[in-house]
């Protein structure tokens, strides 16, 4: 399966923002390989969460690990059957390890959209 994680500028830690994270990490658990891609939504003037979620969908993600998520982005991911998990702040590596050990909880609370402005 492919897991998407929004990444910080340092390319190591999980970014607290989903829509405007500078990078996304796509980790393939079958091949144990990863790709770090620039997030096209980082400079969006609006609907950044939606665009970032679309990016995850288009890159074949099956799951997302994130600190928080807006309702609009969540709607996109839910419609695409992508499961969302709550990240612990820290490195992506730690979060992936926790995920494989089944320690991550599903993210159930989404904040309302910022109406095309964040």
């Amino acid at each position, binding site marked *: 399966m492919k897991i998407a994680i929004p990444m910080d500028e340092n390319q190591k830690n999980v970014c607290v923002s989903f829509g*405007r994270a500078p990078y996304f990490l796509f980790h393939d658990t079958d091949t144990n390989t990863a790709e770090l891609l620039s997030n096209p939504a980082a400079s969006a003037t609006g609907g950044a969460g939606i665009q970032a979620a679309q990016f995850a969908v288009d890159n074949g993600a099956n799951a997302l690990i994130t600190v928080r998520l807006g309702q609009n982005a969540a709607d996109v991911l839910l419609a695409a059957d992508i499961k969302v998990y709550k990240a612990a702040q820290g490195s992506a590596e730690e979060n992936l390890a926790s995920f494989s050990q089944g320690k991550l909880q599903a993210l159930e609370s989404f904040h309302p959209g910022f109406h095309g*402005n964040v």
Partner: protein
Amino acid sequence: MKKLLIISGKGGTGKTTAAAAFIRFADAHAYADCDVDAPNLHLVAGQTGKPQTSDYFGSQKASIDPQACIGCGLCAKSCRFDAIRKNGNIYTVHEYACEGCGVCAYVCPRGAASLYDDIAGQVTLYPGERVFATAELKMGRGNSGKLVASVKSTLNSHAPQADLAIIDGSPGIGCPVIASMSGVDLALIVTEPSVSGISDLDRIVKTAAVFQTPTAVCVNKADISPEHTQSIRNYCLQNGVAFLGDIPYDPQVPIAVNDGKSIADFDCPATRALRKVYEKTIKLLEEVTV
């Protein structure tokens, strides 16, 4: 980094004055002015050092190549924002109304209309020990939400060690206010004791609730109308909003502002009252921060 946002609903209640005072009380090392339509904090925050400015690109805008335009007017007919007008034999784009939707570029039979990257404003950063980020939007530009996000991320990246960031927000309930609320731990609403102030307070409290932002209220120029100040206290009680105190009208405030100083640089009734509100705010901030 804990983030405190100061907003008001109604304009002119004293957001920036309160922000400038809190910055002194907290000895804040990170603060920002997110009132990108009418920034004022730089006039009283007393920052030093050489500012770095960078262009802010908002949404794209359309322009029509006058050489290529054949005057068919299809662009003007298709524009939903009334942004394209006839100009002699050709058509031109009114940049203030253009929203960058791309429809004119799509319908133009000659490829005369196209979109370009528009500089919508600028972000100014004062780096150093005390980081101050501010921004200004050009005339008639929208997307102030994205600019607010730029100001905040500039602050985040230049002052990662700061434990408290104070953000001076905008009046109203629209675009820039909604954007400034993203990721803040507490929004302090500075209101005034008048029917206008109360009406606007209700609208901003409800807006903050839509975005699940914890809020608290304080009343500025409270002695102008003790009855309305009491109404505000009651409103807060009824709506489960923390009431953190009131500040009297103080003629020292415009004097400080005009002198480019924070009111907290003076010992006066407003400063003493603001300090009490500040202390309660910090206490509340500790409680609501996850």
